[in-house]
């Protein structure tokens, strides 16, 4: 086949188009045309009430059932997904210095002006001296710089090289239009249990609709189990931290085991539960990228015997640090195939 890539590209065209092309055929079109022709004929011959019927049918036909707010929201979503995530990301090639030839992958980077990178202790350093950390052969973590000095690093963005996904889902988990806040979930599905999820939240200026700030967290799951709608990354503005009193407290976490479920409570110093997360057996507990040291705690796989003995959160700087201390009784298979003991 000469056009292998085009074949793959066609496989991922819009579901609705594929569905419609199988559902509709020319006979339907003929019948519909005849039917419309009859309506029009009646319209000419008889009363004005038929005009109303025809008008309603016409409106339904062009599917304008979305409310203005939804249309606006879709517009915002589209604009942001495309401009902030995809359009500004450029790909560049890294030459494997072990073989001095060939590509070892395509890496995605937020800035436009990256021209080279070099590998150093399994960390890719760009010309801007920003590290990209290698998680496995095709998964890299890209920190996003933020111009807002009060919030120097919103979050870390994990970006997997895009595989040929079979389907994707785009969900809006939260939308507060008046306050300029949106949270969305973008999940790519493959023809395996694997799925790749991006949780994206951003704030925008209500007047101009320009993005003020956003953060992206990534969940990659090779397991049968999937956790959705959770985030272990906190993006707390200083003033919010002060309001919550988080900046002055050191939280710690205890994990409780209950069959296949592992619950983690984030507890304030006064004993109140500040936050609660429930992990399902087999799901990964994401690692955390610490901007100051570029150190990284890799992802671990939650098992029913995991015992998270001490996690603390401190936020005396805008970025909240989450540090894991894990104790695992049995060896656990890491995403890269190595066994963790």
């Amino acid at each position, binding site marked *: *086949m000469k056009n292998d890539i085009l074949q793959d590209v066609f*496989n991922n065209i819009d*579901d609705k188009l594929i569905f*419609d*092309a199988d559902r509709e055929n020319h006979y339907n079109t003929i019948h519909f045309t005849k039917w419309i022709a009859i309506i029009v004929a009646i319209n000419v011959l008889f009363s004005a009430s038929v005009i109303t019927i025809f008008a309603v049918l016409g409106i339904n036909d062009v599917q304008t059932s979305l409310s203005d707010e939804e249309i606006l929201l879709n517009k915002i979503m589209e604009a942001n997904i495309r401009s902030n995530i995809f359009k500004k990301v450029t790909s560049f090639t890294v030459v494997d210095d072990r073989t001095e030839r060939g590509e070892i992958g395509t890496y995605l980077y937020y800035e436009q002006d990256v021209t080279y990178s070099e590998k150093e202790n399994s960390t890719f350093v760009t010309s801007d001296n920003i590290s990209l950390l290698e998680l496995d052969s095709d998964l890299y973590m890209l920190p996003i710089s933020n111009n807002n000095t009060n919030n120097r690093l919103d979050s870390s963005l994990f970006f997997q090289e895009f595989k*040929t996904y079979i389907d994707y889902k785009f969900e809006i988990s939260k939308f507060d239009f008046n306050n300029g806040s949106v949270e969305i979930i973008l999940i790519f599905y493959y023809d395996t249990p694997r799925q790749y999820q991006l949780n994206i939240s951003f704030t925008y200026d209500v007047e101009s609709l320009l993005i003020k700030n956003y953060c992206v967290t990534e969940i990659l799951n090779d397991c049968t189990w999937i956790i959705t709608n959770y985030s272990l990354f906190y993006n707390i503005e200083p003033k919010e931290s002060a309001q919550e009193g988080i900046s002055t407290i050191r939280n710690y976490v205890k994990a409780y085991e209950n069959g296949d479920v592992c619950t983690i409570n984030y507890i304030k110093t006064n004993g109140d539960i500040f936050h609660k997360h429930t992990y399902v057996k087999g799901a990964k507990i994401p690692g955390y990228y610490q901007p100051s040291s570029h150190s990284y705690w890799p992802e671990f796989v939650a098992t029913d015997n995991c015992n998270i003995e001490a996690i603390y959160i401190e936020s005396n700087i805008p970025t909240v640090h989450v540090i894991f201390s894990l104790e695992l009784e049995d060896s656990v298979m890491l995403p890269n195939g190595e066994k963790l003991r």
Partner: protein
Amino acid sequence: MSDKEIIELLFNRDERAIGEIQLSYYNYCHNISYNILHDEEDVKECINESLNAIWNCIPPHRPDNLKTFIGKIVRKISISAFRKNTAAKRIPSGNISPIDEFEDLISDGELNDKLEQAELSRAISKFLSALPKTERNVMIRRYWYNDSIKDICDRFSFGESKVKVMLNRTRDKLRKFLKKEGYLM
């Protein structure tokens, strides 16, 4: 059984789901696969492989449109099988796939970046959405479902020359559109 009920069976790990999928969609899958492979044995194998893939990926996935989701899996697996067969010389290489009618729209080695491919898929979807319904469906029948010209003629009650001219013009339009949008040089 409705798609929703089939998905529920899959989520409950109930093997009846596979039977229900076959009942509802075997012909659909067969057509997609046969149009690519033209070999009953290979088609059967691909459909079995596809059913296995569906069983494995639902859950966690809950597709909005089960039929299209199944179709995409079958198509993908059938294309892989076709490529393997071609590589193993079971099928002579040559201009035997409808997609090859695009000639050198995109050459192999180009657009290796999956992100660019995803962008291109979106651009083609946008192009197709803007086409009149008949042209769009003829195009998708030919290049997604891999229907033969004769099948398209039968489906739409068109003459062969009309279908060929329509496809030719739409391909040209697509080429111009992709150039205009900056996807092609």
